[in-house]
């Protein structure tokens, strides 16, 4: 356990040293957020009434979903790919650490600053919901974090079969932006479309969690979301283990 904590702390220190990358990530997301806010401002300025959302609710929604975009990203997918193709995975395989555990510790360290920012935003914008459903919200957030990590770990195993997986990044980002409700709340889509995409992993992490923090769902819904997230995490974990094992058989250990 100490090993994984050290890996996390190490990564936190690296992130704090290379602040430029972190600042650029914030800037890019703030630009995206401002674009969304101005578009929605123009909608409300056109004397439009949207039943489900006031303008301030939409703004808070966009702020929180933008923050989830910082927290839930796809870097680990490309990290495993790099290790496989430059042979550095060999070093990891001979070490007395779990590759999944090391990856989780690394990811947590890398995201630590954004975890802090996200927590602050939740405390600012979700204080009402937190007061009523604190433990349930914490449980949902922790399960979501683990579920999303398992999803991206599962996707990363594709690196054993495909040489260049960086082209997947924009596709995954596009999926996340649409299915996660980053551009707009998903319940503003036509009902049929919303019903189909409602419980996808990105939606649970983005749209639904944001609406929970805004205090729009009761305990029953939060429990359902938590159970769905746990189910996804288990499925992704089982698939990851099987595919990783198959991938290791294919792995040749060569590299630069």
């Amino acid at each position, binding site marked *: 356990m100490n090993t994984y904590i050290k890996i996390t702390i190490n990564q936190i220190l690296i992130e704090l040293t290379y602040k*430029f990358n972190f600042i650029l990530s914030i800037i890019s997301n703030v630009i995206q957020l401002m674009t969304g806010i*101005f578009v929605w401002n123009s909608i409300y300025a056109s004397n*439009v009434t949207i039943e489900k959302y006031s303008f301030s609710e939409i703004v808070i929604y966009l702020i929180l979903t933008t923050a989830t975009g910082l927290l839930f990203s796809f870097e680990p997918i490309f990290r495993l790919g790099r290790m496989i193709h430059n042979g550095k995975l060999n070093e990891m395989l001979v070490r007395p650490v779990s590759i999944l555990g090391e990856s989780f510790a690394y990811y947590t360290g890398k995201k630590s600053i954004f975890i802090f920012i996200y927590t602050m935003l939740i405390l600012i914008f979700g204080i009402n919901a937190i007061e009523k459903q604190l433990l349930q919200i914490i449980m949902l957030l922790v399960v979501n974090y683990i579920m999303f990590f398992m999803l991206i770990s599962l996707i990363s195993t594709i690196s054993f079969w495909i040489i260049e997986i960086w082209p997947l990044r*924009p*596709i995954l980002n596009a*999926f996340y932006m649409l299915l996660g409700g980053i551009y707009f709340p998903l319940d503003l889509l036509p009902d049929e479309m919303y019903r189909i995409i409602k419980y996808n992993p990105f939606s649970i992490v983005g749209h639904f969690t944001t609406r929970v923090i805004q205090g729009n769902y009761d305990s029953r819904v939060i429990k359902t979301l938590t159970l769905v997230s746990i189910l996804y995490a288990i499925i992704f974990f089982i698939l990851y283990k099987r595919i990783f094992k198959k991938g290791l058989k294919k792995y040749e250990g060569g590299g630069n």
Partner: protein
Amino acid sequence: MNFKIYKNLLYQSFSEMMSHRFTSICIIIFGIMFIGIEFIAGYVYFQFSDLLLGWSRDDYFLLISSFNIITYGYQFFFILSHEILSESIIEGELDYILIRPLNSFFFYSLYRVDIPSIIGLIISIITFSFFLPIRLGLLEIVIVFLMFVLNIVFVFLINHIVVITSFWSEKSEKLLALPEYIMDFSARPRNFYPRGIKFIFSIIIPSFIATNSIVDFIRKEFNILEYIWFLIFIFILGILSYYFWNKGLEKYQSAN
């Protein structure tokens, strides 16, 4: 730099595309997804009102389509060259070209084309034609075509200026995404933004003119003085780009 050399570069681009088929397929899929997401978002924005600050849904989709044409036009002709150039400058690998009797500025600007982006370009041209509210006469078609070319040149130049900073700073690689953020931010009707932001991105960095001018022309809201300023800006940026490229070459250090 002449047509024969450019033809060879095109052939090399095609060969590279065929070697990296997975990458090419991902780029095509992403292009189609991204266009789809923008239209879905537009559908959601306009479900509450036929007009948003004077813009109809078709006007909005026309703007998105014209922005996509500019973006995919830039990507097709220049994006790979910029990605390779930035890395080559930082790694000190420009020698191969610098020792040849070629104008390095133009050679490196046109070094590679991104063939998969042509699919996104074609789709965007089709959607642009579909959402045109009026039939354009021959002269108008020529003017619109020239405006597209100039707007693509604008995007090329602002990216090129950022790439050139690689001669002076290693961190500039991270800045490469900044022009993309600016253009994405500007890919909405200018009216949606407050006055201060309109001023900054119409006069100081005229990205709004690049993205909105074609639709303004079609909607008969074209501001000729503003576009003249845009042309002057492109001219100045082109001169600065060439000047700093040569200054950068003086500073350049080979890795060989």
